């Protein structure tokens, strides 16, 4: 379990990797060299092929063509077990921890050879010794479910180190961390690299992290590795040019009319309380107001009650206290009220949250309108009218589907979100609730959605944007609130916002009183 400081950590090279999924070429002659004992960033937007490349290396996919060399020797990696045996490890975006088991159990579970009967006393002792040598420390007896997102991420990394893996791939490790935590984790990784203990591949789309922590960087786009160089020898602009193919406008914020003053308060949430899935309080005394023509962005690290808050507003969860008022009147989230007050919603992973996979595109488009004329006539569903209406929307929003009758889960992710957009934004919207709407989409689709949101705001819609992407928050918002521990702990105007200050508020204890700036 201990790593010998004398041996060099592995180096890895991939040459001309090809990988195709159906009609999509995910990797196209991708070649890159990861030098031993260096921190190497793999930069690219969603869909560029970074994950696919790394998964081929780790053995989850088998590349159609190409070679992988570990420490100069060609290897065939056919399964994750083989990559692990070679000392390669990967830390994912979604945690692979068992939340109802303890830290100790999770750590030892990763071992290839476990004794038939587990002597917990000696295991705990050995784990304690291992922890002492590490920069981050965790209580081995704690239940993983009680750890924060940052601690879970650290545990994932510890697990790889405990298992003796010295070539680590970190897949967007900081997406669930505050800026300070992110700096801490990446700083630690860099220290271990400098000490000659690890080779790290950092998959990210954040330039800041690349320039600050990585020594080498490769840019990927469209399945190709466009460039590999040292970070000292390049600049953010050059990298951005490569990443977005010169279309730098795609990465930029949409134009918004910042001169208008916001209108009246349209929605007021006061001291909202809601229980989480495991019986704990997820939303605690949340209070905020939404004004017409203004975007209020609620920033926060994943797992602080944002999901539950949106679920309450959307009608998917019951509130246990507090009130929601729309247009001055109590809002019970019934269908009639949604139609009357013009409340609409866009979430991440629409197939899971607000679409019905087994129904057609046409039926999903009609979700808000199927019981109103002209589609409905006294309870009777007029399918012909429905079809014509759906075809018009499909054309207007350029949704690419083989037919309005095709099942919605045969569409690509971008088109599913476009369907939801068509459904939610084509009506008389007055209150728009958004939750990570661009999650998992490529830059072009994300830009399209952000432009629509900005346009809605300019039209006078009251917008609530709940987002875990601080960049998105800083781009789109008029006002920013920070949610931590289920409470709104901080509020400020966008003009006064400072990234690091927001980050500090994101980890503040839940007992502290909220501040306003």
């Amino acid at each position, binding site marked *: 379990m201990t790593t010998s400081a004398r041996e060099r950590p592995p180096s890895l090279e991939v040459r001309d990797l090809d990988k195709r999924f159906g009609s999509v070429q995910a990797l196209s002659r991708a070649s890159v060299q990861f030098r031993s004992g260096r921190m190497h960033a793999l930069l690219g937007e969603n869909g560029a092929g970074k994950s696919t490349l790394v998964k081929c290396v780790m053995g989850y996919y088998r590349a159609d063509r190409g070679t992988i060399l570990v420490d100069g020797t060609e290897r065939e990696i056919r*399964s*994750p*077990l083989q990559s*692990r045996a070679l000392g390669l490890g990967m830390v*994912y975006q*979604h945690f*692979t*921890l*068992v*939340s*109802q*088991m303890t830290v100790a*159990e*999770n750590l*030892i*579970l*990763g071992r290839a050879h*476990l*004794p*038939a*009967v*587990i002597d*917990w006393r000696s295991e705990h002792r050995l784990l304690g010794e291992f922890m002492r040598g590490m920069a981050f420390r965790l209580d081995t007896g704690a239940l993983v479910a009680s750890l924060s997102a940052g601690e879970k991420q650290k545990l994932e990394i510890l697990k790889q180190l405990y298992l003796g893996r010295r070539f680590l791939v970190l897949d967007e490790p900081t997406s669930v961390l505050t800026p300070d935590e992110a700096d801490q984790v990446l700083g630690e990784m860099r220290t271990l690299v400098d000490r000659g203990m690890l080779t790290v591949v950092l998959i990210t789309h954040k330039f800041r992290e690349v320039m600050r922590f990585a020594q080498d960087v490769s840019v990927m786009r469209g399945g190709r590795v466009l460039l590999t160089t040292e970070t000292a020898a390049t600049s953010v602009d050059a990298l951005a040019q490569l990443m977005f193919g010169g279309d730098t406008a795609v990465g930029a914020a949409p134009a918004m009319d910042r001169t208008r003053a916001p209108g009246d308060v349209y929605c007021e949430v006061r001291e909202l309380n809601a*229980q*989480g*899935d*495991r*019986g704990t309080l997820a939303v605690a005394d949340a209070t905020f107001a939404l004004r017409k023509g203004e975007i209020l962005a609620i920033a926060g690290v994943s797992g602080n009650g944002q999901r539950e808050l949106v679920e309450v507003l959307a009608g998917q969860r*019951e509130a246990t206290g507090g009130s929601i008022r729309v247009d001055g009147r109590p809002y019970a989230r019934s269908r009639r009220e949604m139609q009357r007050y013009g409340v609409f919603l866009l979430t991440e992973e629409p197939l899971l949250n607000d679409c019905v996979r087994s129904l057609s595109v046409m039926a999903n488009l009609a979700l808000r309108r199927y019981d109103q004329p002209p589609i409905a006539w006294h309870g009777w569903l007029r399918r012909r009218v429905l079809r014509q209406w759906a075809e018009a929307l499909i054309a207007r929003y350029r949704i690419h589907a083989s037919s309005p009758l095709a099942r919605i889960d045969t569409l690509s992710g971008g088109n599913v979100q476009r369907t939801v957009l068509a459904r939610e934004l084509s009506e008389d919207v007055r209150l728009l609730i958004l939750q990570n709407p661009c999650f998992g989409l490529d830059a072009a689709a994300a830009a399209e959605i952000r432009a629509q949101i900005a346009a809605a705001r300019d039209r006078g819609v009251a917008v609530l944007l709940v987002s875990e992407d601080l960049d998105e928050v800083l781009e789109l918002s008029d006002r920013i609130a920070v949610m931590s521990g289920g409470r709104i702990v901080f509020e400020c105007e966008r003009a006064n916002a400072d990234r690091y200050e927001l980050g500090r508020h994101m980890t503040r204890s839940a007992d502290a009183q909220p501040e306003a700036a």
Partner: protein
Amino acid sequence: MTGAAGIGWYGVALAIVGGALRVSTPYLFVSLGEVLTEKSGRVNLGLEGTLLMGAMTGFAGATLTGSPWLGVLAAGAAGAAFGLLHAAICNLPRVNDIAVGIALFLFGIGLAFYLGKPFIAPRAAMLPALPLGAWSDEPAVRAALEISPLFLIGAALAVALQWGIANTRLGLLLRMAGESADAARALGRSVNAIRTLATTAGGFLAGVGGAFLSLYYPGNWNEGLSSGQGLMAIALVIFARWSPLRCLWASLLFGGASALGPALQTVGVTSGYYLYSAAPYLLTLVLLVYSSSTRHALSGAPSELSISR
């Protein structure tokens, strides 16, 4: 039974205790088996069919070989086969384990009666009993404290499983498969293999439970042998919050409840026989309502279990 009328309500209490010790055994075995299956993340509603198959096989085995213990083994093997079948089908993608359970429940009952027709006989070689009540002069006490060794085996098993789940490699793997299939896969473990093993073991235990019915109490093989014990074991597991040791206590409770009807008959309370027979089901339903909630998952439920989500 001499002296029963004179004993009166004391007799009822004794009968309930005796019933608890006796009737709880099939509940105990089936629920322990189901704990293993559910801890791995699957629900097996087909246990009623498995139970009957076990009863039939046990009876047939004992009849053919003359040894009740071989019959028990045969019953276990038949139960394991059914568990394996359940697991094999549920391992296929997009198959709903609850529906498969219902299908095997019906199939198992049909198969048990089909294959068991030639074996319908008053008795086969019976399992012995341990006369723990020999110290007493009263026949009622002696009757109540006659315990089957299977009960003792079951109780020991409950303790062993409780320890094993927390302290052995298999136990750790079992819990992992039931709490997070993704984590298990990411670690390179085969979730399907773990669940297959757990469901097969669960089936084995349910088969043994069935053998108890045909080879000890009531001790014959006919149409009305089981009456929902396999199903009630599911609720029992929920009530016991997936802990093998708590299953032991819960089984005793259910056994006592089942013995209520016959016990009351001994003091001459003969009306409402059917209503008393409904007692265990009603108890189960009440317990289920008590433990469930819309706000959160059942306490202690393995996260991958479909009935608790």
